[in-house]
């Protein structure tokens, strides 16, 4: 079978240069040292690292997950090679400023390059992604002491980083966190508490691990307003420059169905009363600070989900081209040669649906990444604000659409493999297992739905909503001018109008105090929004093909047509369901379930 490309180079090219026009980012002062050449070389380095090293290690890491022995976690030995390769290539600190050792690479380009790494081996790459996030928190909010202690070793890969939010009784609801921090009088804090599911929480390839821990200061207000952020290393620095045990213990390794190359751990801090943490950012503002990392992490989850769907799509595509079975509809001659699976109507449907979800999700995440670069570095304040609004609004969709629809897409990849897909001899089953996680961690789909409807679309008195509509309309007009089928553009316009009216109606219910009426169907609302947003983005991509000829461009246009004609109509159907506000589950006595 042909080698799995992980991600299509032609698609990445279209996305980067024709659709997103990443070269334009070099006009921002922050990126002035870059040019198209640096972007291309970076993508090339990551692509090769992914194809030559990370992908080869994927199955071995999935088959032999990390194990606990003598209180420490042993990660797969291949990580001893992959981690230095990731760090030395510059994956951890690529986007960070020059003054902390980074190269100020646009987040957009870093994100697109990460698609390859995530598709090759999401677990291996996640060690790096989490380390970037932890470093970035310290860089943004840490004082000189904390930065001096941890920033360089995190960014150069001597240490790895984690985010330690979740507690056994407090997952979705971070307001209920109970870990505590008590000032020790020397500027550090005594940390006590239990955390669970902490990914990358221990390993055997880097010198130390720095946990970004949410905990409550003594006497802090209850709820999210009383949460502070601390850097808590597994080993802490002594006065003479050595590192010593910091009373952080691995209480257990979670046995997972997927994402098995990276350990997710139950950790206990301060069992012996001797765990020290360093406050990062103002006290009681921990959640606000952490949201910087969480927003990045949510896009990372979206990227991971998109990449996991993509790699499985290419696997099933190659399989379908090679595997022969049966004959075309209407061919009743049993002596004729069996045809490739790709000749069967519904196999094509399954392949094109995967392509739409997978590559559409890559586009969604990359588009968000560009809003992030624009929000931070555009010279014009209004443009920055506008991009920030769009990024905030789209983040819950970029986190959950690739995860939810990606899971279905990964199931289609298994389906195309028939019985072989259900066997662990083939890779597609493992991506299905991996994908499920993406709708759970970093805020479940349900939490994203509450965030989207309860906060994001109604933000700034409806300006966020209006701005999104304006952005979509702008792209649709461009698509039309570039020769995209007007009937497709009309379909997305109608769905946008319907969705916008629905949003306003729900917001009005909320304003009138009917919270259940507004939020009761929020996950359906999220689902409808995802279908609509993908319709917008596929027409944007179709426009970017500029009517060029060839199989690749034909494929992009066919995907756009498929999505707009098959999926966008769901917006109307879901809107009808939401508007009807049936009480089947909302009004039910839970004993009747």
């Amino acid at each position, binding site marked *: 079978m042909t080698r799995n490309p992980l991600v299509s180079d032609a698609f990445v090219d279209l996305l980067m240069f024709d659709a997103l026009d990443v070269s334009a980012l070099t006009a921002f002062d922050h990126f002035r040292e870059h040019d198209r050449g*640096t972007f291309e070389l970076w993508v090339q*380095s990551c692509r090769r690292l992914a194809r030559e090293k990370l992908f080869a290690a994927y199955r071995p890491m999935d088959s032999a997950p990390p194990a606990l022995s003598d209180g420490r976690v042993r990660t797969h030995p291949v990580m001893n090679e992959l981690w230095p390769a990731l760090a030395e290539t*510059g994956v951890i600190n690529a986007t960070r400023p020059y003054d902390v050792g980074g190269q100020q690479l646009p987040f957009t380009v870093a994100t697109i390059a990460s698609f390859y790494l995530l598709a090759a081996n999401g677990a291996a790459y996640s060690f790096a992604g989490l380390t970037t996030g932890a470093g970035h928190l310290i860089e943004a909010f840490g004082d000189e002491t904390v930065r001096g202690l941890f920033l360089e070793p995190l960014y150069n890969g001597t240490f790895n980083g984690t985010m330690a939010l979740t507690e056994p009784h407090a997952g979705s609801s971070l307001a209920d966190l109970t870990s505590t921090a008590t000032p020790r009088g020397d500027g550090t804090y005594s940390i006590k508490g239990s955390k669970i599911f902490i990914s990358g929480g221990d390993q055997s390839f880097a010198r130390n691990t720095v946990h970004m821990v949410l905990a409550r200061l003594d006497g802090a207000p209850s709820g999210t307003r009383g949460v502070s952020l601390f850097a808590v290393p597994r080993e802490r620095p002594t006065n003479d420059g050595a590192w010593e045990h910091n009373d952080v213990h691995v209480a257990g390794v979670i046995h997972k169905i997927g994402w098995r190359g990276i350990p997710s751990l139950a950790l206990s801090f301060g069992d012996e009363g001797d765990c020290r943490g360093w406050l990062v950012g103002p006290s009681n503002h921990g959640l606000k600070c952490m949201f910087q990392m969480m927003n990045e992490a949510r896009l990372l989850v979206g990227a991971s989900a998109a990449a996991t769907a993509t790699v499985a799509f290419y696997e099933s595509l190659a399989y379908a081209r090679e595997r022969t079975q049966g004959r075309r509809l209407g061919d009743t001659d049993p002596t004729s040669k069996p045809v490739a699976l790709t000749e069967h109507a519904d196999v094509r449907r399954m392949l094109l649906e995967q392509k739409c979800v997978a590559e559409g999700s890559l586009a969604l995440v990359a588009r968000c990444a560009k809003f992030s670069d624009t929000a931070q570095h555009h010279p014009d304040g209004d443009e920055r604000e506008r991009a920030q609004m769009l990024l905030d609004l789209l983040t819950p969709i970029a986190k959950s659409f690739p995860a939810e629809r990606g899971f279905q897409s990964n199931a289609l990849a298994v389906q195309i493999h028939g019985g072989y897909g259900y066997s662990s001899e083939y890779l597609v089953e493992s991506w299905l297992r991996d994908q499920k996680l993406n709708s759970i961690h970093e805020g479940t789909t349900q939490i994203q739905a509450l965030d989207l409807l309860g906060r994001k679309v109604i933000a700034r008195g409806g300006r966020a909503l209006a701005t999104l509509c304006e952005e979509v309309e702008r792209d649709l007009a461009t698509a039309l001018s570039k020769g995209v089928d007007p009937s497709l553009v009309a379909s997305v316009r109608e769905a946008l109008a319907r969705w916008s009216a629905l949003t306003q109606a729900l917001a009005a219910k909320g304003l009138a105090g009917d919270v259940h009426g507004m939020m009761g169907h929020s996950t359906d609302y999220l689902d409808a929004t995802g279908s609509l947003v993908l319709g917008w983005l596929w027409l944007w991509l179709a426009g970017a093909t500029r009517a060029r000829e060839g199989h690749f461009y034909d494929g992009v246009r066919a995907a756009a047509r498929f999505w707009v004609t098959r999926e966008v109509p769901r917006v109307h159907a879901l809107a009808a369901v939401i508007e009807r506000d049936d009480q089947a589950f909302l009004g039910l006595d839970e004993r009747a379930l």
Partner: protein
Amino acid sequence: MKILVPLKRTADPDNANKIKIAPGGAKVVTDGLEPKPNPFDEYAVESALRLTENGTNPKARLAGDSVVVATFGAKEASQTLRQALAMGADSGLLFEASDENLDGDLVARALAKVVEREKPDLVVMGKQAVDGDSNQVGQILAERLGWPSATFAMSIELSQDKKSVIVGREVDGGVIKLKLALPAVITVDLRIVAPKSITNHVTPQTHNYQEGARYAPLPMIMAAKKKPLAEAPFASLGVEGVKTSYVKFEAPPARKAGIKVKDVPELVQRLRAEAKAL
């Protein structure tokens, strides 16, 4: 020590199945294929870098050593040079030419001119380019320069005094080792990028290079922008005229399906009677 590495941009070899032959067989059409550096040339760059560094990280050139990369091709080929600079080469030379006006002989003559100007102690190059697969340039160049050469290198050992190299060459039936006095021309094969294929008596014997050509790290990609990259017209080299003309291209005949034999005696019998291989 100064090493010259010639580079060629070729149509993506991973998609070689997508090339077509123009109607009438006039030429090979590679439209729609992404241009990529010839992989054997990337191995040559990797070899040159290993010969001139000490194996530490970040990798640093040994004092007095340099690696120059040169290409003849379209303006866009400067990106191929930049990639080599991002891997670690020190400077690049682009002589603008169109591929159609070049053949192996002309390229070798042009390279001889570049050698005259740059005065390298060693030329390290790919054994062949994966588009034409001609495997000629290194040999013709050595002949023109009157330098010793070793082709199909899978190992290179630089002597302590840097005056000679011992090259392990892959040949049918094994490896043959040749000692060459410098200056010399070496063409490299795939195995030259194995973790311990290059010895320069500075990099510790215990050091394992990664298998394959290195990935350009981001700091080096940025640094490469500031490295010298000179562009000049091909005509400035003062050589011209291609000797090769292509009469006709034809796709190879489609391969016939294989057959399954039931046992070894049948295999032997068929090899003898039908294939006449025994």
